[in-house]
């Protein structure tokens, strides 16, 4: 949705450069005159917040890498040296550590925005899929980053998660050995995780670039989910959206600073301040909070679960493999959401039934997160199993069927006339 206005007039050196390499024209067209729907709410600031978090993570990460030692003998103490003896090392590390949490908070809200307002629908399917790819890359990066301090949770979290691949028949065990670079999570594993943890953020950066490039073709969706009909429905990205984003950034930074300065370890696990010890298993191995919903799905599949026995167990599938497939499936299924949702109306504002189902889906996700952090025993398991079933039921059954059955509310004629279609 490029602007039809003529490009800006440049003078002097800028003009000289722009005639040979039109980056100034490009920036102006994509970030200044770029038209965005004028009815965007603050949910639309979360994309900008995610980009900022990515840049903060890369910047702090590079400085941490200058002091960090990816060696099992040295890693833990090198992190503590950063905390104690490197100038402002504690600040950089706490920004990086809590930045991971902030990144997931922001991205989960960004994804909720996309689901609620139907941002994934035609013509933004590819944009959405790129977003799911970013989420998966973020998860891989965060997982490997958590291993680097080489505390107890680093070691045992890495052991549990890499062991998932052993669920695959025949190729499973060799894959795990290959991932580890040995026969246990050890120095070779730590080394490669550090290398990959440094690499993947730049891959994410590249996919984010594609994500934004794909966004700038149709332009932003909006709370009404209808396309802008002309200049009266849009404002220029700069200064109007940038002014709104500034407010979002200030609030975001206040929350972020609250974590960094006053609760830097609130979202972490105390066991990660105990050096990794292959001989002592922590009583409860829990991943970072942002993985808990998926961890709950993984753990739901136990051999004596009726659902597993009725549908999967009898033809030879193991509960572990089913759990692994369900966990990865729960992510991959998000990528095909544009085709699972059969409604032609984008925004839940005009979808009286699906709107509530989206809220239920969020609650279901939160319940999964809650039980994922609890020991896998008693009623936690039962709740996790029903919540897992509902997760897939929502995506595979409710979403397509409600799309067919539901009678949406009438859409407004245009963004600038929010009233129901006038009888002109």
């Amino acid at each position, binding site marked *: 949705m490029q602007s039809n206005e003529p490009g800006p007039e440049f003078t002097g050196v800028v003009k000289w450069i722009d005639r040979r390499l039109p980056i100034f024209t490009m920036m102006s067209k994509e970030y200044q005159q770029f038209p965005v729907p004028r009815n965007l709410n603050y949910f639309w600031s979360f994309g900008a917040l995610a980009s900022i978090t990515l840049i903060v993570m890369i910047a702090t990460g590079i400085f941490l890498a200058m002091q960090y030692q990816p060696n099992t003998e040295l890693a833990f103490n090198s992190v503590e040296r950063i905390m104690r003896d490197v100038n402002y090392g504690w600040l950089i590390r706490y920004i990086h550590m809590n930045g991971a949490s902030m990144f997931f908070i922001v991205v989960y809200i960004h994804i909720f925005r996309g689901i609620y307002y139907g941002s994934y629908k035609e013509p933004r399917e590819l944009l959405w899929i790129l977003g799911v790819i970013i989420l998966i890359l973020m998860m891989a990066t965060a997982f490997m980053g958590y291993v680097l301090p080489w505390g107890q949770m680093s070691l045992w979290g890495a052991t549990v998660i890499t062991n998932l691949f052993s669920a695959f028949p025949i190729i499973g065990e060799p894959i795990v050995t290959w991932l580890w670079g040995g026969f246990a999570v050890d120095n070779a594993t730590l080394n490669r995780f550090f290398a990959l943890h440094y690499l993947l953020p730049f891959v994410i950066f590249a996919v984010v670039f594609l994500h934004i490039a794909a966004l700038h073709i149709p332009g932003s969706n909006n709370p009404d989910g209808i396309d802008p009909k002309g200049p009266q429905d849009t404002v220029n990205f700069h*200064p109007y959206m940038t002014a709104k984003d500034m*407010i979002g950034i200030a609030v975001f930074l206040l929350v972020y600073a609250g974590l960094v300065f*006053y609760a*830097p370890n609130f979202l972490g696990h105390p066991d990660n*301040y105990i050096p990794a010890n292959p001989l002592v*298993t922590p*009583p409860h191995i829990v991943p970072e909070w942002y993985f808990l919903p998926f961890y709950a799905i993984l753990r739901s599949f136990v051999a004596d679960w009726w659902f597993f026995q009725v549908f999967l167990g009898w033809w030879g599938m193991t509960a572990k493999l089913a759990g692994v497939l369900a966990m990865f499936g729960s992510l991959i299924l998000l990528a095909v959401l544009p085709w699972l949702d059969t409604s032609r109306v984008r925004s839940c504002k005009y979808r009286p039934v699906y709107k509530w189902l989206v809220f239920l889906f969020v609650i279901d996700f939160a319940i999964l997160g809650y039980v994922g952090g609890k020991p896998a025993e008693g009623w936690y398991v039962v709740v996790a199993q029903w919540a897992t079933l509902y997760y897939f039921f929502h995506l595979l059954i409710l979403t397509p069927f409600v799309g067919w059955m539901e009678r949406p509310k009438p859409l407004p004629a245009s963004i600038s006339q929010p009233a129901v279609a006038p009888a002109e």
Partner: protein
Amino acid sequence: MSMSIKSRMIGRALLGAAMALMIGGGSAQAAESIVPPSQDWSFNGVFGTFDKASAQRGLKVYKEVCSACHSMNLMYYRNITALGYSEDQAKAFAAQYETTDGPNDDGDYFTRPALPSDRFVAPFENEKAAAASNGGKAPPDLSLMVKARMNGADYVYALLTGYKEVPPEGVTLPPGAHYNEYFPGHQIAMAPPLFEDAVEYDDGTPATVEQMAKDLVNFLAWTAEPEMEDRKGMGVKVFLFLLVFLGLAIANKKRLWAKLH
């Protein structure tokens, strides 16, 4: 900060007492641990600071009691100037310990008095030696203890004061185990480390068990997070800046969007 002969002997006695059986895996399969009562620490809250007088007393408790078994590997003697000691005092404190250095030009290792730039000298040569002297499991390093446990400071205080001489009815302890209300599983290998007048405070504070536990926690809170005061102080400034920034951002947005129709 002198080490009295008496407390040196107490240290030895405790070392012997602590040569207890670690209850194999006991902590791992522990029942739900009890939430320790929360205490009013000076370092709590947005404007929290360390109680330096208390932390200095805590250093003495660590030195004369805990350090018989527990290392403090992340701390350097120079660090104690942050508790209000002068550099000379830190130097004198370090000089009480012998550390191994080398190899020298002849290729030999030798011992010399510790310097402020040395790490706290550990009670055992290595982890294996520590384990061998303590019933098979090395006593944990204390540098990060307050950060490495759920409810950190409250837990450490509750643990130190939570010993029961007689376990509740129906509980039989294996040999070498002690009953502690707050240790996960309640069976702890460490003998009650503190008892009345285990140390003699330089400032005349009566050395009750509660007082020593409190002082020790103040000290350990500092060793776990020596940056805390800097962090919280900077946080206040960052918040003030961000609030002004937020105000400007809101004003700017309102002014700009008011022109739109």
